């Protein structure tokens, strides 16, 4: 294993970033021991949260992500790093507690973290490691970094309650979406008391949340809604890394308008409305911009509705113009960091119905 550990990870290991190295069989005992000797400490836990990555060079950054997330979400954290295949199976693990002062400024609230570094082909060992280190009865949220590899297998995903992905980072998304389709319709695993299907969250979709809210606000006034049947042109501008967020927004807007995709030419899509009207949707790429989606425009019947992420401002501007009417207002802008998005997902919970309904339409636009 030692040979395949990338340099940045080696530095992190030398610095003791992941805590105390522990024999696999000792993990639970040592954690219990830690909490029994530390006084004034609360071992807080609301869920099991696992981060999985096959890019071990990012483990230190993933550790930092857990640091930020656990400040708001007490959990048993599992950090799973898989080294590229290299013969024999090997596992190293570390434990640590992340503590912060509670609101009374006296009690320390701690999340515990177990980090695994796996070498060799660990297809079945991964599932076992996850199973054997979950805190019982608490849901399992898995943040899968990168593409869904052969490690993403049925025995594992049937025990996951919430799966968090980021499709915008996938070089070849089509087979990836097919895997998700398979996972969400798979029967619930024997070991999970999950009632429904696997809940999937795509960060590429979550990134568009404030934009969706902004569009909803634009059409709150009934006078604005009167123009909904007239909308015939939609233009979504995205930055290069965020085409998927743009696609999701396009898929969502057209779904809510009841329109169906009929034709696609490059980044232009034609939709048909139930009443016969047509909508043209174009996705434009813009190389610069701090925000994934610099602007959205909905137009038709002489009315214009816009959502604009202005420069470096953390706010979204909404503008509408129809008849004599002209408004502009500001709303909170999108969260930028992946950890913030994950925190938002954990905070909101819910069954993520909307994504489930938008996802097939987005996949059809790929």
């Amino acid at each position, binding site marked *: 294993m030692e040979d395949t550990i990338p340099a940045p990870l080696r530095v992190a290991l030398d610095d003791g970033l992941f805590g105390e190295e522990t024999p696999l069989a000792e993990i639970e005992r040592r954690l219990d021991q830690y909490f029994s000797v530390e006084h004034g400490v609360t071992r807080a836990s609301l869920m099991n949260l696992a981060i999985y990555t096959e890019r071990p060079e990012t483990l230190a950054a993933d550790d930092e992500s857990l640091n930020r997330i656990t400040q708001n*979400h007490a959990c048993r954290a599992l950090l799973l790093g898989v080294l590229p295949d290299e013969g024999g199976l090997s596992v190293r693990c570390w434990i640590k507690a992340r503590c912060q002062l509670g609101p009374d400024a006296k009690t320390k609230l701690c999340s515990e973290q177990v980090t695994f570094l796996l070498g060799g082909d660990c297809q079945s060992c991964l599932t076992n490691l996850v199973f054997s280190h979950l805190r019982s009865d608490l849901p399992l949220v898995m943040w899968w970094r990168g593409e869904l590899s052969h490690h993403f297998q049925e025995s594992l995903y049937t025990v996951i309650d919430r799966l968090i992905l980021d499709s915008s980072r996938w070089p070849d998304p089509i087979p990836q979406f*097919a895997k998700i389709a398979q996972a969400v319709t798979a029967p619930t695993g024997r070991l999970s008391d999950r009632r*429904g299907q696997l809940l999937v969250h795509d960060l590429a979709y979550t990134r568009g949340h404030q934009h969706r809210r902004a569009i909803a606000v634009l059409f*709150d006034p009934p006078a604005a809604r009167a123009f909904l049947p007239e909308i015939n042109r939609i233009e979504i501008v995205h930055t290069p890394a965020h085409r998927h967020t743009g696609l999701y927004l396009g898929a969502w807007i057209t779904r809510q308008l009841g329109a169906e995709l009929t034709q696609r030419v490059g980044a232009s899509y034609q939709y048909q409305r139930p009443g016969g009207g047509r909508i043209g949707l174009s996705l434009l790429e813009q190389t610069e911009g701090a925000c994934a989606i610099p602007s959205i425009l909905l137009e038709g019947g002489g009315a214009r509705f816009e959502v604009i992420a202005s420069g470096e401002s953390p706010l979204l501007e909404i503008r509408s113009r129809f008849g004599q009417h002209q408004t502009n207002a500001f709303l909170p802008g999108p969260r930028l960091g992946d950890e913030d998005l994950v925190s938002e997902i954990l905070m909101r919970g819910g069954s993520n119905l909307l994504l489930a309904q938008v996802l*097939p339409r987005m996949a059809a636009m790929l």
Partner: protein
Amino acid sequence: MMVAEHLGAKRYLHFARDRQGFGPTAMDNPFRELLVSRSSPEPCSVVIFGATGDLTHRKLIPALYNLAKEGDLPPGSRVIGVARREKTDEEFREELREMNRKVSRQGHDEALWDRFAASISYHRSEFNDPEGYRGLSELLTKRETTEPGKPNRLFYLASAPEFFDVILDQLRESGLNEAQEGGWTRAVVEKPFGTDLATAQHLNAVVNATFAEKDTYRIDHYLGKETAQNIMVIRFANAIFEPLWNSRYIDHVQITCAETLGMEGGRGGYYDTAGALRDMVQNHLLQLLSLIAMEAPADLTADGIRDEKVKVIKSLRRYPDARAVAESVVRAQYKSGSILGQTVRGYLEEDRINPRSMTEPYVALKINIDNWRWEGVPFYMRMGKRLAKKVTEISIHFKEPPGVLFNRLPVTARKNVLVLRIQPDEGMSLRMLSKMPGPSIRMEPVKMDFQYSTSFGKPSPEAYERLLLDAMAGDATLFARRDEVEHAWRFIDDIEHAWHKSNSPPPMAQYEAGTWGPEEADTLLSRDGRVWRRL
């Protein structure tokens, strides 16, 4: 489309259809579908009467600012403050900014404040001056016609209660109570809502002569607290509690609201005219009691829930005479004592308190609910100032298990107790018996504890944020309805009458500041073979 087929889009579609339990709803705004689970607030003009007062500065404006910060305040909303002092819009905003800096829950961001504050203006008027209302009407019309948004108006009565009447009368006479075309008009009324049944009925008559009941929002900020809202979720979303939630399994219930504060900051003036019973029990504590004791509502609509709550209040057994009050209610005043190492004065020596006052800063009650579910289960309630610590909580004390097997053994605390903590440290705990490790069977009570703050990272929003948003959205679930208020007063009036108008008024007990209240309150329970929970 080919791409979609290739991807197994049919599967996705199947997946999506499966989950359409909720289906696309017939919502007006299609972009709101499934986006948020609450009804959405509409932009409006919030007109605050008493805008230079403490409530506006400390609670209302910071609540609106924090809503704006979260993106929950609908764009196009505006705030118009009304009070009698002369000041410009700029001066008014500056005062509000100063306070917001100090108290805002999520900090103060100057850029965001400037944008938010641009919607705030000030209107000077005496509450009884018809001219002032004409001016207000003109101001509203002007802003509504020159600024975007609908002519929705939310009148917030944040003045001292003696002005509620006159403000409502003036609103009616100036026609400001009438909804404008394409908009709505609502009124939010602060506490206290009356001082007895007669004044509450009078105020209700004035309110309802001015606004329809559906447009009237009587604030009880306890209902805006997360933990109060959680009572129904705990009861009706979990399978394990509701089957036990009745006289067969529950021995009694205790509701405690303890404060360490006395009459600092000049609050004695108002307090001495009210007392613990009217200030806290009539509204907040009876609301908590009704959430604990109500039947499951038919649905989660405002009236569905309030119908059930009001049934509880109507079923409270009344005290027919002063003797019954003396038996079941203890009133008390604190003597000097010590709080956290500081010597504090007795109630009668406090600032702005009549030295011969017969007002109670402490009250304890034994309440019976005459309905099937609660037959024979007393609810003990206590509220007091200058008690040992600040805590509000409800505890459900279960009956003892049958005295066989382990239960023949002596044990200190055999009953299971479920505690719902409202503040501080919101959360809940369950006490049960467990075997102590060792060769003999020795049992001790242990506690399963759940704390909001260690489980949910996000701090709870302030009660006023939630309540303002609900009023803008037209959701009255967390506001008291006319009949709730009046039935609560009917119950309270019997006690007030025995204390202040009967020939043989029950005595005023005393307790040392910094303790858990008078001995008489302990006797209230010990007579029944029970004790107050040690907090």
